[in-house]
């Protein structure tokens, strides 16, 4: 039972992180039918943005009030990157052959990783550590430190609570934004029918930028949460996380924002339980369980969903991209 509860906690923490990143995939896909492969890198840049903010302004401090400022720093970095890449790389390709945006996305992804790796310590006027190796992430009072033990055998990390709380907060914020603001309703309109939306006087280009920005902001939060959880950041952290989050987005039904959140949580839980329980199977099968194989199962799940239920769990805006 403790094991089950512990895995539930682990799964929800992991899932919240996936969900926060997955929203970025889903929002952008819903509007421009583009798999923004570089979104994982936006998440990574968020983490580095927070780190940079900390190193610049608060080095050595651990007070809680620093955290919101770090998140803002992360968002500035992420949103800036996402908007820039939309403007410079994706927008000119909006009517290009279908392979072009995806290949571009791979290019951006590699570029951003390398950019951070090579130049993080060369930011003028700072003495940031080199990003070629892992960099320790700052510890903040209240959200890091001693874990909670609600019962024997179950541990809840403070950073985990922070992650789940941020997901809840973001989900509410996102719901409000999409349904209650003019921009959000514009987003809905464009995702349903861009041409009509354009005719109705909605600035589609602007909506697309907003979609990128919203996704990036949530990815930035995820970046901070990840940094606090594993207490270090590195330039490669976006690749696998991005791929998993994409799986989550597809799982929930790509283009569907609630779907991304549900998909993220489901994937996180699935991963945690698969890791725990497949490892306990009798031997010929048990060998294929445990943490070594969890990514394999996650990717297998991705393939199965894409092939047999591309609309995902909650159904999605499916557009034949053939």
């Amino acid at each position, binding site marked *: 039972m*403790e*094991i089950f509860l512990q895995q539930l906690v682990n799964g929800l923490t992991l899932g919240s992180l996936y969900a926060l990143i997955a929203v970025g995939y889903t929002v952008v896909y819903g509007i421009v039918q583009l798999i923004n492969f570089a979104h994982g890198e936006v998440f990574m840049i968020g983490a580095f943005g927070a780190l940079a903010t900390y190193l610049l302004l608060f080095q050595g401090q651990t007070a809680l009030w620093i955290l919101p400022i770090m998140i803002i720093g992360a968002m500035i970095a992420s949103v800036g990157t996402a908007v820039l890449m939309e403007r410079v790389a994706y927008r000119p390709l909006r009517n290009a052959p279908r392979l072009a945006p995806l290949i571009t996305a791979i290019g951006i992804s590699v570029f951003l990783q390398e950019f951070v790796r090579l130049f993080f310590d060369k930011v003028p006027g700072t003495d940031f550590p080199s990003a070629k*190796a892992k960099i320790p992430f700052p510890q903040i009072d209240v959200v890091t430190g001693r874990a909670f033990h609600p019962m024997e055998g179950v541990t809840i990390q403070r950073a985990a609570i922070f992650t789940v709380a941020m997901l809840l907060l973001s989900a509410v914020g996102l719901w409000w934004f999409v349904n209650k603001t003019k921009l959000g309703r514009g987003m809905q309109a464009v995702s349903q029918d861009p041409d009509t939306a354009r005719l109705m006087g909605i600035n589609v280009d602007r909506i697309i930028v907003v979609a990128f920005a919203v996704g990036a902001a949530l990815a930035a939060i995820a970046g901070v949460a990840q940094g606090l959880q*594993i*207490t270090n950041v590195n330039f490669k952290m976006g690749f696998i996380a991005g791929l998993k989050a994409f799986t989550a987005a597809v799982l929930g039904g790509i283009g569907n924002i609630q779907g991304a959140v549900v998909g993220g949580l489901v994937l996180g839980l699935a991963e*945690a339980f698969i890791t*725990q329980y497949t490892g306990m199977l009798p031997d010929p099968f048990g060998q294929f369980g*445990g*943490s070594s194989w969890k990514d394999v199962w996650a990717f297998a799940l991705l393939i199965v969903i894409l092939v047999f239920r591309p609309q995902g769990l909650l159904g999605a805006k499916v557009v034949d991209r053939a």
Partner: protein
Amino acid sequence: MPKRSAVSVGATLLVASLALSACGSRGGSDTSSSAAGSGASAGGATKTAKIGVIAPLSGDLAALGLGIQNSVDLAIKQANETNAIPGWKLELAAEDDQATADVGKNAATKLAGDKDVIGVVGTLNSSVALQVQPVLSSANIVQVSPANTGVSLTKGEDAANPARPFKTYFRTCTTDAIQGPFAARFLFESGIKEVATVHDKKAYGQGLVQAFTEEFEKLGGTVVAAETINPDEDKYDAVVSAIKPKSPKALYYGGEYPNAGPLSQQMKSQGLNIPLMGGDGIFDPKFIELAGSTSDGDLATSVGAPTDSTDSGKKFLEEYKAAGYSDPSAAYGGYAYDAANSIINALKTSLANAASVEDARQATVDALGKVSFDGVTGKVAFDEFGDTTTKILTVYKVTGGEWKTEKTDEFK
């Protein structure tokens, strides 16, 4: 090249160069020879021999690699200053292996293609060494590793019937076969009877854990959990969750600090408050940085006595500092320095009457096997497999955010 800015100097040189061009003889550097080595003119009586370095000069493990490179450089400079090998000038040829086997093999191929290379110090990683060995061996170039601890590198894949795979391969550090058991004894003797092991599945980590486990169980301890991690991963929830219910008293980790640091941090923040112990791969200040404030009490073994505990070691560190390298000598600096000096010592015999570097290669292999001198990490000599005969190890402990010597002992 000194900077010449005065026009007058230029004018003088103009005349000089016109005079020179009138002679019209070329120094021989623009022939079709493609080897990197012919760039330096073989002027005067001194001939050139190169000592290569293959180590990660970029990437996660660059701190260790640069320490190796600089230490070898120091040894070469000192040899040239003292004219250790009359008639020969030594040069450094450093290649980056990015801690990747493929890149390492390319680097080795490049060095093997260089007619002036007589020996190579490297590699850092055992996995890279596996691919570098055959390339250097086919050119009969000696390789002395300051850091490879994989047993199979000198004893072959079959542990029961050790057979040396490459006659050209030597190392100045002890192997996992000694380091693992040493750690096992230390833990057992300090009263810890249940441990968990984790490794990163790489040759180094796996070998270390295997040797540790054998010894620990032989002593009467129990390994309550044996897990692995994927070094590409950042989160070790799953592993920690799997270990925690077994409540071990310590965790022995086989791998390097980029993973060990976060693992130590994460397991403690998840309530698994036991010391993490590892091999020389985690013995680096970066480990403490990554593991954070909860790393106090974590342990590491490293080969040899602490460099700063012996007189020769202190001297090395001072000279290293005086030479003004921008990176510290790191964990393997002393071994790299000794490795380079072992090659230089061998060259004293092998190059003495040699006409060219290529002719001297076999002689160097033979001479290196017989080398014996006092290095900065202890006595440097090799057994019939190419392993160092020194078996002194040290346990270090994180205390107040720094590695402090806990115990130095000889392994018997």
